[in-house]
């Protein structure tokens, strides 16, 4: 496909300046915006965001606001309130405020991360209520709903630390943080108990009453609780259908497992931009994008 890059002259008039590739960035968090800000001055870039504003849930964070301004000033198109659903060679199928098919040469997946599910942790036992994802817990807490008075928070991530602190502020009596291996914040805050253990199974019906864990010494301990918040093992969201099969037209802008910092996320965005340039400079890609003739 052949796309045209537009730029604005000093009087504010947009004009077509050159033929270039069109790259879609799915997700406008730190990684997506970093990638889009790097690429937008060089090519046509469209950023898809499922939430109604660029930057998503973090739109008010200073770093995100600066990147948002850079992306829009460079002429990138923001498509907010629209969920990227399926990638095919001809483009992206999306649903929402500006749904439909958007033709493009490359797709950058910057859809962020999610906490591992109970099954991904290998937690057995009963299927009971009160076992929720850390992201759901933050939504409940923001809506003034307390998931439990004596919750167990699983994981050693920023999300786990944030949810634990918010649970205590919202009125939880005690929070037990469980993670395999030594936890990053070695000194627990008041009301938070840290435990180096592996979760085994949940007990309780219809609602969770206890979590069985294996401690570092090999003993099995039963922790009474009324909620289990899954907030560890950050796994990349790969929710754009067809994207993983198209490795020559898709670039991933997500941190590796275990990386959980803004620096690593920004680095993932920059690395994705660099990979996009490499892919577009490959002769096969230039021919596919119709750039050879220019």
């Amino acid at each position: 496909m052949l796309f045209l890059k537009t730029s604005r002259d000093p009087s504010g008039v947009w004009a077509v300046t050159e033929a270039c590739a069109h790259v879609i960035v799915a997700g406008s968090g730190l990684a997506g915006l970093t990638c889009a800000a790097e690429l937008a001055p060089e090519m046509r870039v469209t950023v898809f965001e499922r939430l109604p504003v660029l930057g998503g849930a973090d739109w008010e964070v200073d770093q995100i606001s600066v990147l948002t301004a850079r992306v829009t000033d460079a002429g990138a198109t923001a498509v907010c309130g629209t969920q990227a659903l399926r990638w095919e060679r001809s483009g992206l199928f999306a649903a929402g405020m500006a749904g439909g098919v958007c033709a493009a040469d490359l797709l950058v997946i910057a859809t962020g991360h999610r906490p591992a599910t109970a099954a991904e942790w290998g937690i057995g036992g009963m299927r009971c209520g009160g076992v929720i994802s850390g992201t759901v817990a933050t939504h409940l807490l923001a809506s003034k709903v307390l998931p439990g008075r004596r919750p167990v928070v699983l994981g050693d991530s920023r999300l786990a630390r944030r949810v634990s602190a918010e649970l205590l502020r919202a009125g939880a009596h005690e929070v037990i943080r469980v993670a395999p291996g030594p936890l990053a914040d070695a000194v627990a805050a008041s009301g938070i108990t840290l435990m180096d253990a592996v979760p085994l199974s949940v007990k309780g019906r219809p609602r969770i009453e206890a979590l069985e864990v294996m401690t570092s010494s090999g003993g099995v301990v039963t922790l009474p609780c009324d909620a289990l918040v899954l907030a560890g093992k950050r796994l990349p969201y790969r929710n754009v259908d067809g994207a993983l099969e198209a490795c020559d037209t898709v670039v991933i802008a997500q941190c590796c497992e275990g990386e959980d910092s803004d620096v690593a996320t920004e680095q993932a965005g920059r690395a994705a931009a660099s990979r996009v340039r490499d892919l577009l400079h490959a002769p096969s890609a230039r021919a596919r994008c119709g750039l050879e003739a220019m």
Partner: protein
Amino acid sequence: MKVSSPVGVYPFRAERLLLHRRGFRLEGAMGAWPATIESSYRDAAALIALVPPIPVVRRVLGAMIGRRSGSASRNEEPHESQSEGGKAW
């Protein structure tokens, strides 16, 4: 202006204020999502209850809204569209 929702707190941009006989309609957007605030003079009592207890402010507001509410109910017609006869600002 910001509005909270189940998916987070997002900016609200007011685009059009429509006054009509029974109240007002504020049209705008919460980012990319269209959003509307609609209020009738029947909401007045609840809104006044939210105003800090400064007697003068309450009395003035009550008088203003009561007058508009009275004239609205006199002119009220059954099955009339909310936006009919409105004026955009």
